[in-house]
């Protein structure tokens, strides 16, 4: 079963993905705090990590940097940045070098997210 960790502090959004991904047969963990999210990511194996950028205690880009350090997590894990904040080019490029995808939350529906995850599997 595909395992997904979602680090998202907006409960409405987090639980929205939780509901549709679980219905679609995914194993789904939700964390609403940056630090807790990082710990969860390091403690378990996940196929996908959905990572928000604006998070309490630890920002998404910091978590991304930590997770992508060699030996931290399984290199097979794919990290999808989920944000509603459009970065300027420099910030986007730096994410582009390490993340596997970068999606604007407002532009995708849960079904769309599932189809993207399926394409990336």
């Amino acid at each position, binding site marked *: 079963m595909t395992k997904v960790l979602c680090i998202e502090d907006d409960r409405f959004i987090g639980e929205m993905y939780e509901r549709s991904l679980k219905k679609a047969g995914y194993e789904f963990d939700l964390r609403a705090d940056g630090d807790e999210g990082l710990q969860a990511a390091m403690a378990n194996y996940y196929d996908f990590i959905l990572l928000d950028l604006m998070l309490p205690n630890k920002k998404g880009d910091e978590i991304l940097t930590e997770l992508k350090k060699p030996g931290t997590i399984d290199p097979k894990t794919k990290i999808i940045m989920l944000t509603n904040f459009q970065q300027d080019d420099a910030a986007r490029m730096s994410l582009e070098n390490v993340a596997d995808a970068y999606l604007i939350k407002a532009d*995708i529906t849960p079904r769309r997210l599932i189809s993207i995850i399926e394409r990336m599997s």
Partner: protein
Amino acid sequence: MAVDKDKAVETQVTKIQGYWSAVVGRAAKLVIASQLFIVLIAIIFMVLAINTPEDSDMLGTVGVGVVIALEVLVQTVVIYVLLSPEKRLFDFISKVALNQDDNLVTLNHRWDETSGLKAIATFIQDIKNTSAAAAAAAEVTSRPSVDYLLGAFETTSVGFIIMDSDLNITYHNSAAPVLDGYNNESGLDLLFDGEDTVSDWVKSLKDKAVKADRSWTRVSNIPDDNQDKERKYYDVIASFASGNEAETVLVTVDHSEDYGQDEDDLQLIAFAAHELRGPVTVIRGYVDILLDEMGDSLDPEDKQLLDRLTVSVNRLSSYINNILNTSRYDQRHLQVTLSPQNIKTVTNSIDDDVALRANSQGRLLTINVPDDLPLVAADISGLGEVLTNLVDNAIKYSREGGSIEVAASTKGDTVNISITDHGIGMPASVVNNLFKKFYRSYRSRGSATGTGIGLYISKAIVEQHGGSLSVRSREGEGSTFTITLPTYDSIKDKLKTSSNFSEQVVRESSGWIKNHGTRV
């Protein structure tokens, strides 16, 4: 003042009019006096002839001779004396004409004063002085000194930039938007749209036009990287005169206060738009979940409600993207990521959304894109937003039940995508302004819909693809918007060196996914 002046003129005129009688009086006096003198001489001879009868014959002859001689002499003297004022007047006029300032010296005879001759001379002098003053004034206006001009240019808030035939800046005043340390066209601190720049315009005129003028509105200065430079907005007027040393002259008028307000509003809205995305994500997502989970069990009326919710939240999302894209474009932060794409992939990415938008608003949308079109270099999400904007526009300006066609075809090295409606169309005056920022036609102003940036940002995105967006319209018959894109093959060599090009990244709904070896 005016009364004094009138009185002085009146006195002068009275004196001038008195000149004739003065001349007649003087002539009469001289003629009478000279004739009396001659008569006296004649009487003397007659008396001598009577007293000396022996010499009377001789005296008579001599007397007649003397009288005749005297008469000739006296008449000459009288005529000379009578005409001498006229001679002085003519001398005076000649001197005035030749600008010799000592001219009045010759009119200092007492008779000149009393007769009115001096009044005539003064009058002529006044006319001369007045016209000389007018000429001098005209001289100042038409040929001011260089210092005078430069001083004026430094005081004005209007910018002046003069460029030679190589587009080097040979002069600019301090109000002109010119970057320090540059003396060529790249020193212009003006941000033109795409290739519609002053230098492109001048280059297009070379060898073709002798003289030409044109203007640009709402041209901003170039923002710096850390955003702390004050944003300015200018109207720019350019005139070109081929072969002239100052071949191109630019005049810039700072309209920052007028235009800046809209821009400030936009920045504020852009800031707020980020916040709106949170609730939009939730509404869109939950409606999607409801449709997914209840879709089959919904009765048609409930399904319609959810569809309308979907359409509305999708439109809201498009508005937000237009605002954010415009804001990023204006800050020069909007970048497209181009990769070889089929037009069909682009239309497939939006067809569900636009079909729902059209159908729920009672329009019949058909999308007819052949499978065998050449590839184009496209940013799927950017181009998708453009198509969505154009279909939205077609919905807005057509009637319930009207049809909208999206079609694509190839022509030479380009692929054209057209969006046609059969709605209200628009007159040429509207077409000319259609792609301007914040432009809303009188129609959309009336219905208070539209932000005036949808077409502006669509054009910008298409131009970032190296393409163009055009429109053909007839009032009452409808409009066709056409996106023209270069084929991938025609630009691939240029693209591979461009930072916009990426084969590793696939754009997806305003974001991207890394392409891990296989084409998605």
